[in-house]
């Protein structure tokens, strides 16, 4: 057996905080062999990113490595002086961050950034470095690298930028790449390509990869061996197939179980039959005018530039059912959702709620019937308001309660229904975790006793286990109140699990719709097929 590239022994990372010491990484040990891709998985706060940062020596102060050792090819590196560590970075250990939009300096061309990195580590002159940079870009799958090398980051799309980031990380042929959530910010179709590129480049160089991610699907498709982390500790280590198929530890079992799959055919309740759909969306269209200013048009003769965010979308939602709307970013699904609740006015088309057009201003009782749950539970609750006031706001605004005590009773009741202690109403949102906040958001949505709730990516900001709880809650409430949901999500697995009917959006157009099982098992549109293929899914593990 060859020597491991990296060897971590009993690593402890600590953050001295106001209220004592916070141990982010707690006695972690593992090895990565040359050419191996090690997946590190865990929910937020598990310490997986911190482990990566510790290896490359980039822990933000006041955090520090308290104990343990890190060896790079047998040489201890955790106690190197900063200057030596800095020359090691990029040269022997490369790193890829999550967000390609912010990883590149916007003021330099990608060529400048590549050449700078190459020349820092390799004894090449400017021209040679440039040549090498072009080769790297070509390898990373950037078309026309000779000309694109002089472009600035903002001239690339997100996926292309992540390719540049990978090229940068690999510029000096490091032995180890730490990829910290490299695809989490990308759409599924792009995600698949990036994983492919990363895998290919590392294989061709024999570089080892430490792939840190919360997405078990990505690991299932990419890694050979994996580590499951929780609360700073390693819970389980083993081959990917073993862990996913035969998890041993309780935590892992629960985790795997919480992950929805696009193959799952969860049994749902029967949707009650009603003669008329609750919501009818008819030829909904929305344009955004992005025309340049008056002077630009005057001088350059540029034309008006109108983006069709949503084009001629029509669908019905049955009362008591869940309609899933899926699509990648920019597909227009969120614009659709906002038009449905009246936050954005459509350019043309109608939204009928029980036969009444609601897209252009809602009447009092219609407002009460339609509610919305938002994606980011941190931004959807006013941080300066007490939870009780947040939940009571719709009741007060719509004058559904007559007195303060009545409102308080209702709030307490709602909190219990979303499985929160009624005493929570006296607290502020920041005292709650993400999942708890999303429950509060649901309680708020329920407070006006709506019939129809638009859920815009309700769980995409949550960890999988929390996601499962929130989805469960949503399902229970649907049964309890006979709610109708419009579920917007980029996560196909979630939609498969929750929806009765599904619509697939692409570039503002509804490309396909129908009952969920039909669409997932037998997609007709090319786009739907491509999307379904691209989704990394734990069921794909060999």
């Amino acid at each position, binding site marked *: 057996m060859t020597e491991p590239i990296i060897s971590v022994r009993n690593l402890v990372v600590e953050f001295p905080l106001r209220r004592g010491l916070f141990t982010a990484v707690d006695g972690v040990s593992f090895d990565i062999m040359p050419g191996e891709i090690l997946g590190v998985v865990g929910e937020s706060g598990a310490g997986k990113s911190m482990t990566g940062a510790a290896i490359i020596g980039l822990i933000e102060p006041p955090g520090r490595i308290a104990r343990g050792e890190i060896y790079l090819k047998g040489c201890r590196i955790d106690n190197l002086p900063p200057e030596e560590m*800095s020359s090691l970075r*990029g040269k022997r250990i490369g790193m890829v961050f999550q967000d390609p939009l912010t*990883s*590149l*300096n916007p*003021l330099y061309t990608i060529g400048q950034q590549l050449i*700078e990195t190459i020349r820092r*580590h390799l004894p090449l002159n400017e021209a040679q470095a440039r040549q090498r940079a072009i080769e790297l870009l070509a390898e990373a799958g950037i078309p026309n690298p000779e000309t694109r090398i002089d472009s600035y980051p903002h001239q690339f799309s997100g996926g292309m930028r992540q390719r540049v980031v990978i090229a940068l990380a690999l510029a000096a042929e490091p032995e180890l790449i730490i990829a910290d959530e490299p695809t989490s910010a990308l759409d599924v179709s792009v995600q698949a390509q990036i994983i492919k590129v990363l895998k290919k480049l590392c294989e061709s160089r024999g570089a080892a990869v430490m792939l840190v991610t919360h997405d078990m699907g990505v690991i299932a498709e990419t890694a050979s061996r994996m580590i499951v982390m929780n609360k700073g500790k390693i819970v389980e280590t083993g081959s990917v197939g073993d862990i996913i198929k035969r998890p041993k530890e309780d935590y892992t079992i629960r985790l795997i179980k919480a992950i929805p799959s696009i193959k799952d055919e969860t049994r749902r309740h029967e949707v009650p039959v009603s003669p008329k759909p609750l919501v009818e969306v008819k030829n909904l269209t929305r344009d955004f005018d992005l025309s340049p*200013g008056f002077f630009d048009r005057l001088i350059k003769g540029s034309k008006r530039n109108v983006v069709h965010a949503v084009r001629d979308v029509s669908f019905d939602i049955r009362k008591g059912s869940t309609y899933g709307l899926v699509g990648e970013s920019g597909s227009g699904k969120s614009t659709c959702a906002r038009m449905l609740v009246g936050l954005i006015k459509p350019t043309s088309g109608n939204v009928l709620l029980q036969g009444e057009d609601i897209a252009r201003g809602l009447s009092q009782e219609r407002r009460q019937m339609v509610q919305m749950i938002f994606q980011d539970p941190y931004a959807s609750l006013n941080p300066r308001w007490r939870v009780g006031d947040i939940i009571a706001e719709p009741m007060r605004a719509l004058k559904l309660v007559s007195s303060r005590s009545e409102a308080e009773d209702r709030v307490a009741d709602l909190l219990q229904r979303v499985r929160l202690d009624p005493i929570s109403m006296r607290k502020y949102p920041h005292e709650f975790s993400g999942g708890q906040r999303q429950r509060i958001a649901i309680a708020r949505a329920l407070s006006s006793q709506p019939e129809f709730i638009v859920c815009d990516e309700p769980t995409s900001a949550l960890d999988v286990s929390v996601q499962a709880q929130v989805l469960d809650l949503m399902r229970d409430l649907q049964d309890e109140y006979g709610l109708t949901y419009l579920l917007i999500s980029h996560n196909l697995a979630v939609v498969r699990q929750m929806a009765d009917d599904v619509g697939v959006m692409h570039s503002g157009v509804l490309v396909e719709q129908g009952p969920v099982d039909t669409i997932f098992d037998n997609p007709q549109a090319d786009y739907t097929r491509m999307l379904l293929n691209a989704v990394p899914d734990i069921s794909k593990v060999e």
Partner: protein
Amino acid sequence: MLAFILRRLAQSIVVMAVVALIAFMLFRYVGDPVASLLGQDSRLQDFEELRERLGLNDPFYVQFGRFIANAVQGEFGISYRLQQPVSELILSRLPATIELAFASAIIALVFGLSLGVFTALKPRSFAAGLIMTLSLVGVSLPTFLIGIGLIYVFAVELQWLPSFGRGDVVRIGSWDTGLLTSTGIRSLILPAITLSLFQLTLIMRLVRAEMLEVLRQDYIRFARARGLSNRAINFGHALKNTMVPVITITGLQLGSVIAFSIVTETVFQWPGVGSLFINSVQVVDVPVMAAYLMFIAFVFVVINLIVDILYFAVDPRLRIGSGRR
């Protein structure tokens, strides 16, 4: 780019017009020029005559129209007080103000930038804390007090530096410069320091805040992960990105240095446009005051334009792409 500049110019014209209106309206109320123009021996009918001759009895819009028509030609009339063409007066005072403003701008920029970078790079060091606290003294002291203090210490007690004026000046073309004589340079030191102190503090704090912000950005972490040296990261990446927001505010700040110099010029008897303005305010020399305000507006417009162009030069996101912010 051209479109952008044109748009800016259109805005600038509006700005100038508004300032002209405000300037004109304000000055009607600052005081009665007639009272200060005529001496103790004048009689009532003289006042009336003079008012009539100055057109002060005309309706407001007639006076304003006359003012605009002349201003467009760069003609602001004859100073009531000094009886010389205002444009000539302002032009002859301009070199003094510009040299003072530039000297203090350079002091403010050099020290502001370097101290700002230092405090951002070593935010937790004792020296940085000391600099941050001391710099607040700079904004807690009124300018006039700093000036008087410096005069007292360096001119009266120590007698190292002159207390007033510009020293000897050398005429180059139509420009009187004090930068070529030793007395000129020595005279510049105290007023330049006085004027720069406030801006220095602002720039330093701005640079520090922006740089701390930039240093937290992902691309800086990524640059570290790429193994770049601290030098390259701090000065190649962080500083350049810091400059983008700093340029706008600093540019505008430096523009206002010229206008800010009113107090400094008064204290040091610096023969610039600021002291010309204050002298004119005291006797309600309306042509000079109006011209001064227009001049300040013009400086503002020009600096804004330069800042915008600099922005273009520094930030590729503006240069390439739709050209809209």
